[in-house]
């Protein structure tokens, strides 16, 4: 508590005017009883949860207002501006999507919004992050989690102040890469808060926090002055000023002078510069090859700020409203329109590629694309490819634009990107050259081939170049279990398979979904060579996706969901043939294994498998009691699909319980 007090005292404000911030330095002031009295607005259409949350928040000594409708909540927020400190909202609500509410609140009232949902899948959480949620809580929500929500309020306020104060000293690029992890660490909020406050002057904190937390960071001057809108022209002026000075010599003061725009303050420029740098840094992070973990989760988490795909940044920036797409496009135009003496193809610009994540050193060719419109297009392409249900990738994919597949079929989007590559890369290179030269004179990893852009996940992520039609039809998710913790890195992302991918070598290395609670294995088809599994042949006659996916699934090699004992008997019934089944057989769902209470992550694949099994035969029943299951023979395994896989035999006790219940 002592640390707490120190934070509280260093942030001082009256309890009633919780939201007001002093301009004097890093001082966001709160009362001594902080965070008691935090004014929370909870929005959830589920009355049960609403009541529970209300009670828990009261216990935390917060001041709670509840609302079961988003529209009513919005009305309340608008009527009483400045009355609330933080908003907790459910994602799925009948009258308005939670994310929409999130955006509106962020735009109009600029309050931190925490999303909640029963859906804890990585994809869903990713959506939350992309929309700019300060946090994403998964139901059931515990009181401890609620106790911590005040940190978001403080962080936001603190960031605003920080920006105002220290907007001048952004010379040091390198400090960006060091985040202040403490601040974001929910489990050590007190320390983090304190450190953050004490370290006030460091941009790195701001950078990191902005990066990781405040996707919808607002203009620091917003709280004091009218928000500056960085229009296309203004941004162009900014960029040209920066280019003139050189990215590492670009200080707000000089930029301001060069821009010579009346009414623009140094603070505005400073904050914009900061964002710009972050943006460039993220782009440069694309080249990162080694540092990226195998798991997507890891990728997401650790690379959120070094997202190789500028698109993500763009989105982020877009979401934050700071840099409208047109501006970005202008930026590109600006960057690329400059006649460059050093026009070099991507290949000739090894210098540009830099694996390090530090500073805007280089931008991989492919990702040079990460600007504005083209990306937007790509994104939409991608989203087509990744319909909602895709495991964990839907948002990733769309968020991340095109993941270039490794050396094989580049994905649709990436091909779009490819188109831009030449041109963009030149321009980008040019700019980066400047910086690079000024900054460092070394490390230049050769440009990876365009097709290999981010090898990070390349082995993991395969982006089908085909249309999404297959996905949509085939998306089925076998829900494994709510409690599964998918930390395995050896998961395969089925979502990426498309039926026509017979020849594309999709190297599905690993797909890890850190929190895939339910994974769906569905009718993905296509031949996929999944490492480490040995490649399996695709049955050309598999017409339906399901059929194919079965092939695929087999290849996965993980298989059998041990959770259903019966299923293990069915291995034989797995049919890779298209003959029957596949066609429109709805995927039988193994799901009714309400029985499984805990399934290890890799079972996700298994789900799929068993699904596939079920697919074949209508006669294939999975009785709840687990006893009668008929199977049909005629299965063709392709290679190892088999059950050589470690079947997870950990059957939770519940199946038997369930059975007893059923038989009661």
């Amino acid at each position: 508590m002592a640390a707490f007090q120190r934070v509280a005292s260093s942030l001082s404000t009256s309890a009633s005017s919780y939201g007001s911030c002093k301009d004097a330095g890093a001082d966001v002031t709160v009362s001594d009883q902080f965070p008691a009295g935090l004014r929370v607005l909870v929005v959830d259409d589920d009355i049960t949860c609403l009541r529970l949350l209300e009670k828990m928040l009261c216990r935390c000594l917060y001041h709670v207002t509840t609302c079961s409708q988003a529209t009513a909540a919005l009305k309340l927020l608008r009527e009483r501006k400045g009355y609330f400190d933080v908003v907790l909202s459910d994602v799925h609500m009948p009258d308005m999507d939670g994310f929409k509410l999130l955006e509106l609140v962020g735009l109009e009232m600029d309050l931190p919004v925490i999303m909640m949902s029963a859906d804890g899948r990585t994809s869903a959480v990713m959506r939350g992050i992309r929309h700019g949620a300060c946090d994403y809580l998964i139901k059931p929500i515990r009181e401890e989690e609620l106790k911590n929500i005040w940190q978001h309020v403080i962080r936001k306020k603190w960031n605003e102040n920080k920006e105002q104060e220290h907007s001048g000293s952004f010379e040091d690029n390198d400090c960006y890469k060091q985040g202040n992890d403490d601040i974001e660490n929910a489990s050590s909020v007190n320390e983090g808060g304190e450190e953050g406050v004490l370290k006030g002057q460091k941009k790195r904190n701001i950078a990191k926090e902005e990066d990781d937390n405040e996707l919808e960071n607002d203009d620091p001057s917003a709280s004091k002055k009218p928000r500056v809108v960085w229009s296309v022209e203004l941004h162009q002026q900014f960029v040209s000023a920066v280019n003139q000075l050189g990215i590492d010599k670009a200080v707000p003061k000089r930029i301001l002078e060069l821009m010579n725009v009346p009414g623009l303050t140094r603070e505005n420029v400073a904050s914009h510069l900061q964002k710009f740098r972050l943006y460039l840094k993220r782009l440069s992070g694309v080249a990162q090859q080694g540092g990226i973990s195998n798991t997507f989760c890891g990728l997401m988490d650790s690379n959120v700020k070094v997202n190789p795909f500028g698109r993500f940044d763009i989105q982020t920036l877009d979401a934050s409203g700071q840099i409208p797409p047109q501006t970005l496009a202008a930026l590109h135009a600006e960057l690329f329109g400059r006649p460059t003496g050093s026009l070099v193809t991507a290949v000739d610009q090894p210098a540009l590629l830099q694996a390090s994540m530090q500073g805007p050193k280089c931008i991989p060719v492919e990702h040079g694309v990460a600007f504005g419109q083209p990306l937007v297009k790509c994104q939409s392409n991608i989203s087509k490819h990744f319909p909602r249900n895709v495991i964990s990738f839907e948002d990733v994919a769309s968020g991340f634009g095109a993941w270039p597949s490794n050396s094989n079929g580049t994905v649709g989007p990436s091909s779009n990107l490819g188109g831009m590559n030449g041109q963009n890369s030149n321009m980008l290179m040019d700019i980066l050259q400047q910086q690079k030269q000024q900054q460092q004179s070394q490390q230049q990893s050769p440009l990876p081939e365009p097709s290999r852009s981010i090898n990070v996940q390349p082995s993991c992520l395969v982006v089908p170049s085909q249309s999404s039609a297959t996905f949509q039809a085939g998306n089925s998710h076998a829900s494994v279990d709510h409690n599964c913790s998918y930390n395995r890195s050896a998961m395969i992302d089925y979502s990426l398979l498309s039926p026509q991918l017979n020849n594309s070598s999709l190297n599905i290395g690993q797909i890890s979904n850190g929190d895939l609670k339910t994974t769906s294995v569905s009718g993905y088809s296509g031949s996929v060579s999944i490492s480490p599994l040995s490649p399996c042949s695709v049955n050309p006659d598999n017409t339906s996706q399901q059929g194919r996916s079965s092939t695929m699934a087999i290849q996965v090699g993980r298989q059998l969901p041990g959770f259903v004992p019966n299923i293990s008997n069915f291995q034989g019934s797995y049919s890779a043939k298209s003959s029957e089944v596949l066609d429109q057989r709805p995927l039988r769902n193994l799901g009714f294994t309400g029985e499984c209470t805990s399934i290890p992550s890799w079972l996700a694949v298994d789900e799929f498998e068993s699904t596939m099994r079920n697919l074949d035969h209508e006669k294939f029943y999975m009785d709840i009691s687990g006893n009668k299951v008929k199977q049909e023979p005629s299965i063709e395994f392709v290679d190892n699909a088999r059950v050589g896989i470690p079947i997870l035999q950990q059957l939770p006790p519940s199946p038997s319980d369930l059975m007893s219940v059923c038989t009661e």
Partner: protein
Amino acid sequence: MLGWGVDRLRADMSRLLAILFHQGVLDEQFLQLQQLQDESSPNFVSEVVNIYFHESEKLLRNLRGLLLDREFSDYKKMGIHLNQFMGSSSSIGANRVRNVCVAFRAASEQNNRAGCLRALELLEHEYCYLKNKLHELFQMEQQRVLAAGARYPLQQQQH
């Protein structure tokens, strides 16, 4: 003797709860729910659980209505109901119900109508079981309170 009745009731309740936990019908979230009950809201648990029952029955009716419709195709809508059911169930600690919801959701995402029907049956079954058991629990609690109140000050439910 009243005191003796109270103790026995309490023991019965404990036993019932233990069984429910063991069966996985309830999980530790239910404990959290119990802990939220205090002097300022002495009937918090039963209040919330009753809200849950009320809402759940609505959801179950909706789900059944959706599925029984011959031309049913709106899996998305079903998914939304399920999501809510999952959220509220997990929030009160109805573990098995929540698990069936998860499976149900999987079936619905695969547009597997037969699977959904099966899951719905299972869901209704689990829900009924839960409801019966919780009613039992509340009845015992009521009796205990009465018995205790006759002689001792109202005691909080402790677990």
